[in-house]
């Protein structure tokens, strides 16, 4: 179905960014605009999801150029759901930024860039054109590079160099793959490619291209062995920025993998085997990496990698139920990871350190706040009614159905590693008796902040925690949604029909 308004989530973010640029020097006004803008964006994306849920896949041909010649935007349930999650995370981070970002960073245009980043993310989820996907990826990289370096601390610059080098390399590989694909088929429209690639006789070249896409997206989504840029950079910027990075940046890569490897390349046995091995090793290395870290944010960075492995496992098993599991896990992970980085930021505001060895006694000092923080932490572990459990359940179900014993073992191992790490973190930060930490001069501690800022930081964590709880307790609804998404991914005919209008 054709619908010219599905591009609104993208345009609106650009509009907010432009309005923010006009109020460059007025910091409080910028905060207000950013929060209101994020609220409206949330509303728009909610309407989009409802519309897609009701009327099926929506497509839009930019400039009125008919597919496969123009650039197509497609909103199926998967895209619309991810756009909604992006908007939710965007709102939370925007509110959290009101409380935690220093004025010096706002002066350099923090808020406009944040909204441009969210625009890039929404665009990447909505586009139906592989080259346009590359363009959105570039927008994401450029905005994240600015966000990573704003403030110009030494550690930040060091992290940014690793981050940008690896991501530019990934972009080059991605672009090369697109070029080969275009040479093979003469098309860039993903729905059209789905038909064209299946008809290409040179299967060897198709497989090579598929591997190139796997490497390109693999770097971006931080899978084994291409993940090392992530723990080297995610702990360097302010927590609000880590939150949006940790929640969404790697997930765009996962989204692209899920989309490309269900729509364009249908993986053969060899490719699913490669993806499965990558998934297992990602789970293992991410988990083991997190085990030995002392910096809270580094722990979470490694846990991102570990849990990217779960989503990749869904693709590796390649059945409807396993992909539904991966989608469910994706939904849960975006909310929880965004929240966890904000939690670490809030703890830092209280204590002035991220080091688990130095921290302690948080439960004794802030019992209510600790309970609030327990929600995302234990959702991540996936203790049954909480959100992390259901995705893994579906994944294991899928693995049993395809009798992939090794995968089950690794998923369970990954869960245990996560449980152990979170238990260790909980014991170290919340229960252990903490020594009195020396007050640092350059940090503005929580109790020195204005009441509005305090409320903004706690409010955004509470908001995402409630959503995580909602995902856990409303699992049936999300599960039905993920099953629909998985079925749509496994059978792309409706998608192709909606785009090409056949």
């Amino acid at each position: 179905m054709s619908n010219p308004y599905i591009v609104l989530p993208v345009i609106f973010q650009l509009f907010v960014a432009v309005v923010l640029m006009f109020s460059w020097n007025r910091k409080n006004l910028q905060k207000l605009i950013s929060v209101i803008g994020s609220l409206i964006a949330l509303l728009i994306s909610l309407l989009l999801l409802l519309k897609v849920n009701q009327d099926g896949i929506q497509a839009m041909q930019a400039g009125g150029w008919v597919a496969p010649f123009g650039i197509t935007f497609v909103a199926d349930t998967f895209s619309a759901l991810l756009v909604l999650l992006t908007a939710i995370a965007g709102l939370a981070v925007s509110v959290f930024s009101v409380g935690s970002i220093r004025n010096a960073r706002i002066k350099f245009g923090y808020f406009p860039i944040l909204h441009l980043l969210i625009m890039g993310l929404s665009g990447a989820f909505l586009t139906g054109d592989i080259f346009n996907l590359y363009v959105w990826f570039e927008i994401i990289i450029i905005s994240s590079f600015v966000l990573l370096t704003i403030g110009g601390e030494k550690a930040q610059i060091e992290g940014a160099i690793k981050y940008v080098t690896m991501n530019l390399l990934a972009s080059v590989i991605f672009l090369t793959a697109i070029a080969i694909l275009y040479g093979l088929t003469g098309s860039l429209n993903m729905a059209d490619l789905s038909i064209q690639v299946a008809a290409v006789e040179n299967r060897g070249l198709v497989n090579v291209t598929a591997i190139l896409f796997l490497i390109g997206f693999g770097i971006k989504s931080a899978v084994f062995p291409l993940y090392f840029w992530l723990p080297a950079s995610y702990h360097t910027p302010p927590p609000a920025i880590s939150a949006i990075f940790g929640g969404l940046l790697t997930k765009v890569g996962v989204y692209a993998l899920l989309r490309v490897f269900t729509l364009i390349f249908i993986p053969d046995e060899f490719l699913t085997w490669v993806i499965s091995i990558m998934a297992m090793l990602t789970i293992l290395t991410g988990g083991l990496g997190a085990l030995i870290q002392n910096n809270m944010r580094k722990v979470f960075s490694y846990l991102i990698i570990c849990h990217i492995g779960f989503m990749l496992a869904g693709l590796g098993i390649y059945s409807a139920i396993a992909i539904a599991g991966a989608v469910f896990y994706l939904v849960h992970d975006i909310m929880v990871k965004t929240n966890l980085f904000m939690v670490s930021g809030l703890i830092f505001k209280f204590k002035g350190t991220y080091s688990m060895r130095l921290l302690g006694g948080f439960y004794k000092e802030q019992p209510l706040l600790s309970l609030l923080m327990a929600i995302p932490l234990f959702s991540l572990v996936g203790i049954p009614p909480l959100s992390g459990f259901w995705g893994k359940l579906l994944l294991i179900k899928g693995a049993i159905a395809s009798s992939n014993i090794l995968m089950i073992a690794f998923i369970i191992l990954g869960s245990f590693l996560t449980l152990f790490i979170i238990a260790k973190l909980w014991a170290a930060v919340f229960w252990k008796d903490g020594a009195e930490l020396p007050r640092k001069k350059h940090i503005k501690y929580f109790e020195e902040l204005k009441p509005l800022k305090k409320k903004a930081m706690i409010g955004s964590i509470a908001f995402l925690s409630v959503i995580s709880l909602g995902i856990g307790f409303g699992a049936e609804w999300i599960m039905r949604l993920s099953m629909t998404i998985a079925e749509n991914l496994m059978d792309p005919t409706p998608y192709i029909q909606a785009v090409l209008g056949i």
Partner: protein
Amino acid sequence: MKTIIFKTASAYLLPLLLLFSVFILLRGHYLPGGGFVGGLMAAIAFVIHSFANGIDKTKNIIKFHPGFLMPVGLLLALTAGSLPLAFGDTFMTGLWMKQSVPVIGSVGTALFFDTGVYLVVIGVTLTIIFTISEGL
């Protein structure tokens, strides 16, 4: 580079190059040219002027901070792109006026989009150059 020849020439080059950049801007669409190249040329005009007369004098000509051109240009481009939505067309559809305007030719949303790009490019380039030369 404060030679008298360069200084004299730059006084003539500034308006000439600016005019030429507008020509390149309007020439775009069917022929090589457009907002991006035009914007770069306009920025070069100011850069040459600043080389010859010093950065402060150039800033005096422009009067406002060039960074201001960025949101203006973006807003213009965004409006030109979203305008078709109001008429029930899709984003970025070209809307054209029925009658053509003398000198410029036919006017459509594409022209405004390109003008937006032109302004953004001038704004970005001059902001970068002014910032770097302040640090020297």
